[in-house]
């Protein structure tokens, strides 16, 4: 709103700049102004040189304005602003006043032509600033107070209000736009500019005079500003302020430079970094994992790009992945949130993996899982969203793993879909057994634990009582040989688990279409869907739907030709894929390269693929589909 308001006032405001222009504040003020390139201003400037001594000081009447500012003159002001601040100044005239206030225009006088008196006049920029801040730019005055480096009470708030982390490139463009429209950005950019100038002065002083006091004082002034803004904020604004008019460059820099660093500093995402660097960790590191150690890991990733090719075996997925810089770039381009590090290799149901990722994308707050690889926890994000959804649409057989308990006294049988992991969520095998034990235990609830069979020793006191579910190393989320020990008694005969999945991604007939995952998803989440048949459509969809993704089924042989070797033209191992972004690097603008997240890659290792390969892979699946269904669709809210 603020932005629009000021835009509408742009012309009015410029009335105040009555034929004004800016001169350098240097002592040698006879030096011509900054606008030599413009004919009109050259003429005015020549007059200025002649009449400078005669120019009266600030006259309020003139600032009330009767004469409009010529476009050329406005252009001149903008032309002489530092390039990165041009956009800010252009969008918000009060920004110019602020920039003048913090001495960023490099001027201390404004010259303007007073038509009433038919002469040029000179006004000190401090008076101009004072006038505007008390008038039309009063909002700016409040900001001036708030964002003043001396305002210690505002410091904590400013330091803690960080630029939000864009999840993907399109959000980054939105962020760039929002920063450009935010009047506070002008202040921060002014500070960034000041710090850079101080740093330059300190450097030059060091080279020329080695004046330690001057260097120290300049550095202190710079540091004071950095402290006020906060180091992270300062770095982020530094990137923004250098690229106020170049959103693509801003996004390339802010996302590429910071992804792993942000991951390491965020306690939620710290285990992601841990998983990448697990092979660097000593045993003593494995229990505690501080930000400091994470930063060491980031350094290792930066110096050893191949570190990211492989993963901790606990986070089972396809490899090799990408080298660290590529991985970081792909993650920045991908829209899929990485709230937890997942392990598709431990799930025997690719529909569940794909569905869970799509559901988490559209309803991130609902499916916010903790990190962890222990005891199959990394499968949670790939299973529970789908199991919840399947049960909601009455398609529980889509998950396929079902546990049943036969009550020996009543003869009744209770069955439910379960997933093998150690969490206490309602569909975990552990919860199922805990519920089952209520038949045996009269007092209180029993808590069970999933533990590796090799660790269980019935002779040890701690295992003599309580509930233990012993699992084999070969366990995955769907299938797991197990033994149940309750107070050292076996409950195995009373519980059986079957794995018979029957779930359709998209329908084979009208009948199956209705209860297929795809149709149910669109119905339940009220999504719109459109077919994506070529690269142009894919690009357009991603551009027009910043919160949408493209999903479908492709042949693995075409996307991973190294691993999936074709043996006949009818061969196609169906592989659900998501297209979660597009390579928007300047150098690849004319290429059709997309970010692909397939069900065999972990969510932290999306890949860049040429459209030609994606299309080929989807087309071959389409050809063998009984209804010749084209599977690639863009879905959005």
């Amino acid at each position, binding site marked *: 709103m603020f932005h629009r308001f000021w835009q509408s006032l742009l012309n009015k405001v410029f009335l105040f700049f009555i034929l004004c222009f800016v001169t350098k504040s240097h002592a040698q003020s006879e030096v011509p102004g900054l606008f030599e390139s413009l004919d009109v201003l050259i003429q005015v400037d020549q007059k200025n040189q002649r009449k400078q001594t005669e120019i009266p000081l600030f006259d309020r009447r003139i600032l009330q304005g009767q004469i409009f500012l010529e476009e050329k003159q406005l252009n001149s002001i903008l032309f002489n602003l530092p390039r990165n601040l041009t956009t800010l100044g252009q969008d918000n005239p009060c920004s110019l006043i602020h920039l003048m206030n913090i001495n960023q225009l490099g001027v201390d006088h404004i010259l303007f032509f007073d038509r009433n008196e038919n002469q040029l006049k000179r006004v000190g920029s401090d008076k101009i600033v004072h006038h505007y801040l008390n008038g039309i730019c009063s909002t700016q005055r409040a900001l001036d107070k708030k964002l003043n480096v001396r305002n210690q009470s505002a410091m904590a708030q400013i330091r803690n209000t960080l630029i939000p982390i864009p999840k993907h490139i399109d959000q980054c463009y939105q962020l760039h736009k929002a920063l450009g429209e935010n009047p506070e950005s002008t202040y921060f950019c002014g500070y960034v500019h000041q710090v850079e100038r101080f740093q330059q002065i300190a450097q030059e002083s060091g080279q020329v005079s080695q004046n330690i006091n001057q260097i120290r004082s300049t550095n202190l002034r710079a540091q004071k500003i950095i402290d006020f803004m906060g180091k992270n904020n300062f770095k982020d604004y530094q990137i923004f302020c250098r690229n106020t008019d170049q959103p693509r460059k801003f996004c390339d820099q802010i996302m590429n430079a910071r992804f792993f660093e942000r991951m390491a500093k965020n306690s939620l995402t710290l285990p992601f970094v841990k998983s990448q660097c697990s092979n660097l960790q000593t045993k003593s590191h494995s229990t505690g994992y501080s930000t400091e150690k994470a930063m060491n890991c980031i350094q290792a990733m930066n110096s050893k790009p191949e570190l990211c090719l492989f993963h901790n075996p606990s986070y089972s997925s396809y490899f090799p992945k990408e080298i660290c810089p590529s991985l970081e770039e792909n993650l920045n381009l991908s829209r899929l949130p990485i709230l937890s590090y997942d392990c598709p290799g431990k799930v025997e149901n690719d529909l569940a993996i794909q569905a869970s990722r799509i559901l988490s994308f559209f309803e991130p707050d609902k499916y916010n899982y903790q990190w962890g690889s222990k005891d199959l926890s990394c499968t949670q994000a790939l299973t529970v969203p789908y199991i919840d959804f399947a049960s909601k649409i009455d398609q529980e057989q889509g998950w396929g793993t079902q546990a049943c308990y036969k009550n020996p006294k009543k003869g009744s049988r209770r069955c439910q879909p379960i997933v093998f992991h150690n969490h206490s969520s309602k569909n975990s095998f552990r919860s199922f057994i805990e519920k089952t034990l209520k038949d045996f235990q009269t007092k209180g609830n029993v808590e069970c634990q999933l533990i590796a069979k090799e660790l269980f020793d019935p002779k040890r006191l701690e295992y003599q009582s309580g509930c233990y579910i012993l699992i084999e190393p070969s366990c995955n989320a769907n299938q797991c040989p197990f033994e149940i020990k309750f107070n050292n008694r076996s409950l195995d005969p009373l519980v059986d688990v079957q794995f018979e999945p029957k779930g359709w991604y998209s329908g084979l007939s009208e009948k199956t279409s209705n209860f297929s995952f795809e149709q149910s998803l669109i119905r339940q989440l009220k999504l719109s869907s459109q077919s994506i048949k070529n690269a142009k459509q894919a690009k357009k969809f991603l551009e027009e739907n910043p919160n949408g993704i493209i999903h479908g089924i492709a042949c693995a042989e075409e996307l991973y030709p190294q691993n999936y070797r074709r*043996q006949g*033209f009818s061969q196609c191992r169906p592989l659900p894929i998501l297209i979660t972004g597009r390579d928007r690097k300047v150098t690849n603008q004319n290429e059709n390269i997309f970010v692909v997240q397939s069900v065999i890659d972990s969510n932290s290792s999306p890949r860049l693929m040429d459209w*030609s390969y994606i299309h080929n892979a989807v087309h071959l699946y389409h050809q063998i589909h009984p209804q010749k269904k084209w599977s690639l669709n863009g879905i959005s809210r």
Partner: protein
Amino acid sequence: MGLVVKIILILNLNTLLFAQSLIPFTAKVPTAALVYFTKDAEISYYKKRSHTFDMVAKNKTTQLLKLDEEFHLWPHASYLEKRIVFEVDPTYYSHLNIKKDNDLYLSQIGSNEIELIGRGIQPKLHLADTWISFYSPSRKRIFFYHAPSKELKFNIEVNNPINPYFIPQVEMINPQTIVYTDVNQKSQTAALVFNPISESFEPLYQTTQADSFLSLCNAQSQLVIADFSQKQGNLSALHIALNLKDSPPYQTKQIYQNDSAHIGSITCKETDNLIYFIKSFSSNPSSLLPSDLVRFNLSEMKYEKISHNSNINQVYLMGGEVFASQKSKILILNEEGSQ
């Protein structure tokens, strides 16, 4: 169905101009239904909408399989065309899981009989179609089926502790010398030689780069190992095994090296000394395109480009013929044109 299958090869003018020997493959019936046809086009195999799988020979249709629900299958046959193996996924649409074991059926080409020989993926015929190897991801084992005796003779446990999607490549030099690929704890891929009688394993070749992928093939009794990287700037190389029929230690010799991205596996015919693979000719590190089919001649030790700016991303053998996937089309190598 009773159709006499005529395979029609249509020469496309563009293809002739730019790619001397790769031509579009078309058949009178949709390729989606056609599963396999013999080189003389006398026998063909089809999947039908009625959940059945048929063979058509001498204008007579025989039903080979009928399943309860919509399934999908694909074939594997060697250039000899004595036997054929079908990998059948009976829950192709109702259980998506790329790691699952499929049903493997074996038949003599032209025979009305078909037998289930095991559950696994990626079957391969060896030694004049008398042996079939296949891999079971669920058991992490490579099984070896002896067709004349109808027995699973032995199996190899694959180590691979880290990549659940890894599919080992297998070549049988003779019944006592089997070469296969495996991955170790440090993510290094290696080609190993296994002797089923002594149950011994010997190393043959190990990748030198972290993101390399090994593939094997047998060209005129020479075992070729491709150590390919899909990254521009990394080295890709071809090696031949020197003394597989002797005692270990086994040795290899590098015969080709290049730093462009190499895509997929190598393919070679047992009957000649030509190795086919796909190489990227891209100047952009983010893109693999254009990518073209390349042929390496083992006798002359040199390679030549077969296609030009074709964006090919798969090359494979079917019944001894070289096929390629390109921009949603199936291409076949026209041998005459290539000579």
